[in-house]
């Protein structure tokens, strides 16, 4: 009897293992964490807090009851908020009058640490270790009477006192993404650029994909996802190597 039970038990376990290993389809399990967005995102989930960047405020929704978000605190800020990038215990918000840095160790009550107004930025920010990378696109709303665009590197090791360490001109930058020693910058109709940031305070342009009209980019475990007016592209990226196209979904009229 015991043997039969044991055999049944083993069979049951085995069939479970088989079921799992043969199920190659994408998996959304109720217990899994939140996903990953690009630098252009206005929504971000950190634990049980969902942050929405509205034009003039940062709104927090509590999603402890996931199917019923409850509006909690909000932080009123100047008009012109555009993007949010959560990193470690902080939120980095790209706005038309600069970059705002929040402490979100209390996820439902983010605390404003600093506002970096040196960059009159309209555009997104990504962060890795002690550096924030910001693209600034020229335009009247962003940079009064200055029509230059740039890529700025900001030292954020002191979150209360961010410091510009590098700036270089860009053409028409939108989203950007960072992973290890590589920085990817969407240049709109002017293509996609790859920088080597082995020295973060001195990004070096390594590759320009002129034909890849790009808007948003997500680097994720060696796969670079790119959207733009040409469609959706995926590349394999590796340190010191050129991007290798994996797939493309073209735009249809």
């Amino acid at each position: 009897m015991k043997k039969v039970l044991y055999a049944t038990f083993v069979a049951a376990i085995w069939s479970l293992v088989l079921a799992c290993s043969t199920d190659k389809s994408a998996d959304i399990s109720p217990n899994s964490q939140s996903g990953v967005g690009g630098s252009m995102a206005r929504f971000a989930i950190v634990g049980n807090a969902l942050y929405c960047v509205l034009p003039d405020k940062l709104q927090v929704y509590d999603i402890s009851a996931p199917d019923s978000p409850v509006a909690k605190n909000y932080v009123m800020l100047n008009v012109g908020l555009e993007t949010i990038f959560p990193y470690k215990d902080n939120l980095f918000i790209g706005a038309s009058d600069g970059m705002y840095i929040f402490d979100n160790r209390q996820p439902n009550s983010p605390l404003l640490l600093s506002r970096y107004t040196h960059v009159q930025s309209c555009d997104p920010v990504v962060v890795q270790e002690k550096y924030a990378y910001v693209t600034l696109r020229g335009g009247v709303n962003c940079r009064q009477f200055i029509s230059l665009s740039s890529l700025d590197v900001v030292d954020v090791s002191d979150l209360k006192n961010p410091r510009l360490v590098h700036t270089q001109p860009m053409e028409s930058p939108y989203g950007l993404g960072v992973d290890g020693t590589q920085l990817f910058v969407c240049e709109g109709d002017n293509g996609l650029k790859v920088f080597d940031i082995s020295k973060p305070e001195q990004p070096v342009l390594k590759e320009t994909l002129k034909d890849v009209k790009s808007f948003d980019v997500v680097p994720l475990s060696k796969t670079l996802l790119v959207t733009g007016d040409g469609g959706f592209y995926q590349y394999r990226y590796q340190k010191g190597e050129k991007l290798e196209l994996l797939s493309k979904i073209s735009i249809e009229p």
Partner: protein
Amino acid sequence: MKLSFILLIISLFVLMGCISEVSDDVAPPGAPVFKGEGYRPVYLSIDEMRKVSTEAPQALRRPGKIYVKGSYLFINEQGKGVHLLNNADPAAPQKISFIKIPGNVDIAVKGNLMYADNGRDFVVLNIADPTNVRLVKRIENAFPAQSYPPYLNAYFECVDETKGMVVGWEKVTMKRPKCFR
């Protein structure tokens, strides 16, 4: 004397005519010269806006932001909804469905739930079955009305709220519109 005065008046009128014509063509300070294309608001009635549904996969037309969750990939179709794909193999992404969410720009996903903007509303969708996405919550008017397109250096037709709710913008050939951002 009289003649020269009349001539002066006439020339003033001519000049003024010239100036107003010129100022029509001159770009606002810092703005690029208008090149014949601008953004026109796409209006929808509130009833139409709130029609969220799961459709068969669709072609990418104006892809926007990207969101990744496990092997699922979400690509926003600007102002229309979200393409849902299985991206387990990035060399061969498979379209699963198109989630129609009028006015959509942003999403975020946790567990089986997708959070999205649906025009001015904030919606929560259950995507456990990506071919049959269900609306589980709608928070009305969570977001402010769109008064300008999500682009900079853009000329656009000013919003007329009597025409409905702005759910997106289309780039079209037009006479130089009054609004610029």
